[in-house]
């Protein structure tokens, strides 16, 4: 491994954190409110357990013989060269499809909220170019991009939360109906769904510089994401109310239309919607890198760039051909993709984790 083709753990965490906010506005708070009603804002707390479990599971899965592996290598050394390659290849194809859905939902979102008379391919193309720029070249470049984007994005979130919190209707949120705790726990499922796709970025885990504090930092990262998701739900439900939020296509953007900064600035929703696209680009870029890394390992190819470019083409096709109109696409992006992601992360990976690491498979790395 060349020294340059590595990103630091901090950069990796920044990329993961920003990328995970891409599906947040697509799925939340609607998916939570459908299950848990107005007390659904508590659901992120219920998601803590499964997410921490996933951190532990991937930590176990990605370690063999005292070495830190990428997800592709972990699959190879547990499933063997044939089944491992097949599994990694299929997962990479899934990531291409998933990346296409992320691109398309970003485009649909911006069409619905800011540019209703514009054309979808424009945003698909623009988003893909940004994703490809992010994913091309050394990982250090992607890491730096992600770190800068994370700072920028943190600023946006700070402005949104700081302006939204003082204007909330606390009676929409408090007191929560704890008698519906089974529903609240069920509402944690969409939150887990939104925050768990980071496991797919584990294909890059062997390209992340070793960090002694990686474990505690990962736990802190999960806590931070859960807290931000909680704030996201509190501000949206507290501003609109559960029933109204449930009826909206993108309740978060309806909420930010109402924001005012010190009564001197209003209607900055379009800026936030457009800047929110950064999360899509980082997510697409990270998926391109992850899938590229997996396919590079599967085929033994020396150049990741080729797979990144092919991945871009795959994502574009997936974005253009999936679902048809926005109504049908909503079923794919809000039902199908989350269900498959959840099954893969919480059924397939634990099953693979149960398999022992075979010594002979570890020799693959020496080749």
């Amino acid at each position: 491994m060349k020294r340059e083709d590595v990103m630091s753990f901090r950069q990796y965490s920044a990329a993961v954190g920003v990328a995970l906010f891409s599906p947040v506005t697509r799925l939340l708070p609607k998916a939570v409110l459908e299950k848990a009603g107005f007390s659904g804002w508590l659901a992120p707390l219920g998601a803590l357990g499964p997410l921490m479990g996933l951190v532990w599971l991937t930590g176990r899965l990605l370690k063999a013989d005292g070495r830190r592996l990428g997800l592709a290598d972990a699959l190879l050394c547990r499933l063997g060269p044939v089944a491992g390659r097949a599994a990694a290849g299929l997962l990479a194809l899934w990531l291409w499809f998933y990346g296409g859905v992320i691109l398309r939902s970003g485009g649909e979102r911006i069409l619905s909220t800011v540019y209703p008379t514009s054309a979808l391919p424009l945003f698909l193309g623009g988003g893909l170019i940004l994703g490809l720029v992010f994913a091309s070249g050394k990982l250090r470049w992607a890491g730096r991009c992600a770190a800068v984007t994370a700072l920028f994005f943190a600023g946006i979130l700070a402005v949104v939360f700081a302006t939204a919190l003082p204007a909330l209707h606390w009676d929409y949120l408090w007191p929560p109906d704890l008698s519906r705790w089974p529903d609240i726990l069920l509402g944690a499922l969409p939150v887990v769904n939104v925050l768990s796709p980071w496991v797919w970025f584990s294909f890059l885990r062997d390209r992340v510089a070793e960090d002694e504090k990686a474990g505690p930092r990962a736990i802190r990262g999960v806590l931070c994401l859960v807290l931000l998701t909680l704030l996201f739900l509190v501000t949206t439900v507290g501003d609109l109310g559960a029933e109204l939020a449930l009826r909206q296509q993108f309740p978060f953007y309806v909420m930010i239309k109402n924001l005012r900064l010190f009564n001197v600035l209003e209607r900055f929703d379009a800026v936030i919607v457009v800047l929110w696209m950064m999360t899509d680009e980082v997510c697409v870029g990270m998926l391109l890198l992850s899938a590229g890394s997996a396919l590079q390992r599967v085929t033994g190819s020396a150049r990741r760039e080729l797979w990144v470019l092919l991945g871009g083409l795959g994502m574009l096709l997936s974005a253009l051909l999936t679902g048809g109109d926005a109504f049908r696409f909503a079923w794919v992006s809000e039902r199908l993709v989350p269900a498959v992601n959840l099954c893969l992360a919480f059924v397939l990976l634990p099953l693979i984790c149960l398999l022992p690491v075979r010594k002979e498979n570890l020799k693959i790395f020496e080749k």
Partner: protein
Amino acid sequence: MRGKLALLLTAALLLSGCGGQKPFGNYREIDQLVLVQTLGVDREGDLFTVTASTAAEKGQVLLKTPAVTLSRALREMQDYTEKKYIFYGHTRHLLLGPEAARDSFGACLEFMERDGELRMDTKLYVVRDGSAEAAVAAPGGGEESVGDLLDSLEKDVSLLSESHVFTCAETAEALAERGSVLVAAVRLTEPENILSGEDRRLLLSAGYAVIAEGRLAGWLEPDLARGANLLMGQTGNDLIEAPDGHGGWFAAALTGSRAVFLPEYEGGELTGLRIRLELRCTLSELEQPLDLREEETVRRLEEGIADVEAWRVSRVLDVSRRMGADFCGLEKAVRRAAPLRFDRMQTSWAEIFPTLPITAEISVKLTRTYEGGIEPLRSGARAAG
């Protein structure tokens, strides 16, 4: 690296809409925009008539269009301005005429939800005895716009607690939650009370419009609106006048209130509801001097306030049950008090509500007065001093 950065910046600028009119379609410079502040919607037969008040340097400019749909009406208004685009994104007030509120309340609210430019925090009003068009035109040729009048009215209703101005979002949420809702009502009034000789007409608060099952179902007069505000926790700074128990009158300002809902269950069914209203007031006027250090005196004043508020609350509850419209949100409050017991009931709230025995217990705490003395001024006290 530089190439990548250039590509990144170009794509980011393009995606943010900095590419001009095309290909984004709705990019416009700010000096090309005409900002609408207030929209009035009337309904006659199958047609909506939309009146828009736009901000201008000297007074307001009014535009009016009839159309089958609200979208069409707003779109057709674009014809009325040359080289400018009418922008509805800063609309702050929406006035519905009585017919529009009666026949198309749900449709108007749905339009506000779905439209990309309009905001859900737009303040909502229903015009009583008149049309939204006349209300929007109320300022006449003066320098004020109807938006200014409504801003001022919003502050006034809070001061008098005659109603409360809710936003479209609050109204839509309440309507979805409980099926009925109160919307601030305004009335167009001739300026007989203005002594300065202005020729404009005024918009005054007219209590609440009651919306039930998605349409205008009736009105709450300002006095009853005060009772509804107590139940909904929207008390403002209401002023209560009552007999002082010594043959005179006094006035007290409401400084805070709390409603506690105590449902009573028997055999798993809701058999009654006690509402405990705790009010805090400040004495603001006494017709005759009273010694406020005497507990009995203060108790009588507190009882006077409680009697007034009890009458208002019981009347509102009567109206609400008679209409079968839980516009004060009692169901939510009752459910929150004991969610499990409420959910286990065999009978629905809609069935129980019209005949449910409801009692309101009002406790008042007169906490202080303003500059006036606590003891009455005794004759000769000044001379002795």
